[in-house]
């Protein structure tokens, strides 16, 4: 590196001397026609060009060389450095002063131009960096971009960003082998509250200049700002989530206490009247009161179960335990259990056994069907028909639970899956207002989609579930057919 630099510098001097030699030869040819002062002026042209294009060093040296050639070739007596006429001495001295001053001026202009260009490049780099970092809220992405920019600017062998605050990690560029020696330059990534990490740079040659160091410092402080911003944004969103969940909890508490108190008051009333002497042993009211206690206890248990499921969905604990299941078996077992809940409704089922095996959590899918069906039973008029249909559509199974209940205004079709959302007043129907949002949580945990739509004579719940699970299609099993 240093060697080639030396060669290019020597080349610049050679070029300068060559140029002067060329000009000198031309001027010698025209010597008789030109006045000495004119020669001196003409000599200033190459000098200015040399300083402008080749730099200050070649410029000054050329000025001195020109002074000598001018004296030697153009001041009588020719071909000696002796000067006889006093005017020639004056011309020579003035030429030397003017040549050096021009070189200096042009050179300084050049240098400040170069500095300005460098500063502009730095500014562009910084602008690029700060634009790239704007709006980022992820420490990893920020470090990646920072490392890339540092690498581009420094052209170093390797760059490493170490983040120590929060969850510590390191990002390296290139991510292959890391030099074993200690880095040449380390810049802390610092904010007012403390150190968030550091930038390590490996570059043995050329040595890192003070300008580069200054730029890297600025990069580090830009990175620090971005990281700080990311942290603040995270803290803010955490605060917002907390606030929201706090708000939800207070809605939950009021909804829940109403819901829980209703069965509790039935139980309390029934139990206390059984305990008192008001109800005789052989009274017809006795079995009724006892049945009320039993039913309401079940209802209470269901409410608590729903609340637990919801909190499991919210906290992300509800991971489906997926296995290959037969959908018709799940629907069948739900219907068998709901027989007494369905009341006067007629439930028609078209879930063919020939459907492929489905990668679902048996218990959670039971719950989806139970909730959708009990929602339909609750809202659809007595003696109406509820239809359950399932069919294969592309790579998934589409299930429709359709009832003849009241339609839902278009603007509420999405919102009925929100927690505690009710179209009817809360005291007219029982439930926690959680059933549908639990369904949505479960279907989405299975990477499916659940939606509601109005159909001519009622409301239909639709959901789709993918058949392919972790890249595996439903298995078909070899069955043994031979009997014993």
């Amino acid at each position, binding site marked *: 590196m240093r060697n080639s630099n030396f060669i290019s510098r020597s080349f610049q001097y050679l070029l300068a001397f060559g140029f002067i030699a060329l000009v000198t030869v031309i001027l010698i040819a025209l010597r008789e026609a030109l006045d000495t002062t004119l020669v001196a002026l003409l000599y200033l042209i190459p000098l200015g060009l040399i300083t402008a294009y080749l730099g200050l060093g070649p410029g000054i040296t050329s000025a001195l060389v020109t002074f000598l050639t001018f004296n030697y070739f153009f001041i009588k007596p020719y071909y000696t450095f002796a000067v006889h006429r006093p005017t020639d001495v004056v011309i020579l001295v003035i030429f030397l002063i003017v040549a050096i001053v021009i070189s200096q001026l042009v050179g300084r202009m050049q240098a400040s131009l170069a500095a300005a260009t460098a500063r502009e490049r730095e500014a562009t780099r910084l602008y690029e960096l700060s634009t790239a970092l704007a709006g980022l809220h992820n420490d990893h992405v920020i470090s990646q971009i920072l490392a890339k920019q540092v690498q581009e600017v420094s052209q170093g062998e390797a760059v490493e960003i170490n983040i120590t605050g929060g969850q510590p990690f390191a990002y390296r560029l290139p991510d292959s082998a890391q030099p074993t020696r200690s880095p040449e330059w380390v810049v802390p990534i610092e904010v007012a509250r403390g150190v968030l990490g550091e930038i390590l740079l490996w570059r043995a040659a050329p040595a890192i200049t003070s300008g580069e160091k200054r730029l890297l410092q600025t990069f580090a402080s830009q990175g620090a700002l971005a990281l700080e911003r990311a942290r603040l944004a995270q803290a803010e969103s955490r605060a917002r989530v907390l606030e929201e969940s706090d708000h939800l909890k207070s809605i939950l508490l009021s909804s829940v206490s109403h819901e829980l108190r209703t069965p509790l008051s039935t139980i309390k009333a029934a139990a206390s009247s059984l305990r008192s002497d008001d109800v005789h042993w052989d009274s017809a009211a006795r079995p009724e009161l006892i049945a009320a206690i039993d039913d309401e*206890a079940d209802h209470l248990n269901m409410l608590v*179960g729903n609340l637990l499921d919801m909190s499991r969905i919210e906290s992300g604990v509800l991971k489906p*335990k997926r296995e290959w299941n*037969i959908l018709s078996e799940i629907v069948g077992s739900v219907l068998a259990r709901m027989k007494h809940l369905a009341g006067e409704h007629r439930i028609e089922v078209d879930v063919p056994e020939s459907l492929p*095996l489905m990668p679902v959590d*048996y*218990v959670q899918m039971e719950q989806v069907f139970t909730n959708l069906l009990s929602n339909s039973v609750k809202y659809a008029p007595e003696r109406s028909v509820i239809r359950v249909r399932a069919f294969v559509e592309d790579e998934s199974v589409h299930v429709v639970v359709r009832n003849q209940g009241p339609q839902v205004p278009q603007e509420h079709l999405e919102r009925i899956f929100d927690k505690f959302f009710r179209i009817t007043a809360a005291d007219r129907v029982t439930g926690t207002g959680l059933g549908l949002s639990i369904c949505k949580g479960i279907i989405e945990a299975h990477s499916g989609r659940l939606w509601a739509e109005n159909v001519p004579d009622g409301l239909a719940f639709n959901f789709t579930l993918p058949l392919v699970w972790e890249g595996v299609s439903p298995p078909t099993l070899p069955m*043994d057919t031979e009997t*014993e």
Partner: protein
Amino acid sequence: MNNAPHILVVDDELQIQRAIRTILTEKGFKVTTASRGEEGLTLAATNEPDLVILDLGLPDMDGVEVCTRLREWTQIPIIILSVRDSERDKVAALDKGADDYLTKPFGIEELLARVRVALRHSASRQGTQSKVIHAGQLVIDLAWHSIKRGDEEIKLTATEYKLLAYLAANHGRVLTHQSILANVWDPADANHTEYLRVYMRQLRKKLEVDPERPQFILTEPGIGYRFIADE
């Protein structure tokens, strides 16, 4: 009443203890209660009960731990009674040697039915295993490998028969997917619940009156299956 079955109830909720004690005593069982796991283990060793009803959330140790330690020296039936309703908890307790699992709140009829099944099984383990099982119209003869509905012979494939025989021999008890797969297929197949799903469907079609609403082979969601036979 000296030969009345002796039941040990390990539960730290005094209200539940009281309720179970009242009902079981009423039904002619002898009842001992314990509130802590260590106490329960000591009582099980000194009193030699015929059955243990065990809560999972005990103050001093987990019920599953009590289960494991009981199984180190005794095969007395254990029925788990717990508020934990996740399938994982149930399967864990069943795999550690519990015979049955009931989630609180529970109906007392259900508890009594499970107690009777568990006691009958421990009796049959001691020798008097009946080789013919009746379930509604079905007659399953484990000695002769024959299954009849009324007079009509039902033909099963080899795997179907193996599966039914395992279920019927353990009728009344919940059998986890893993234990069925390990016993009927191979321990290496313990994760292939799809085998079970498919063969159970076949079996139900051959045995049940209405395969969609089975009476004999019941699904225990997320846990396994239970075969219901006549008492």
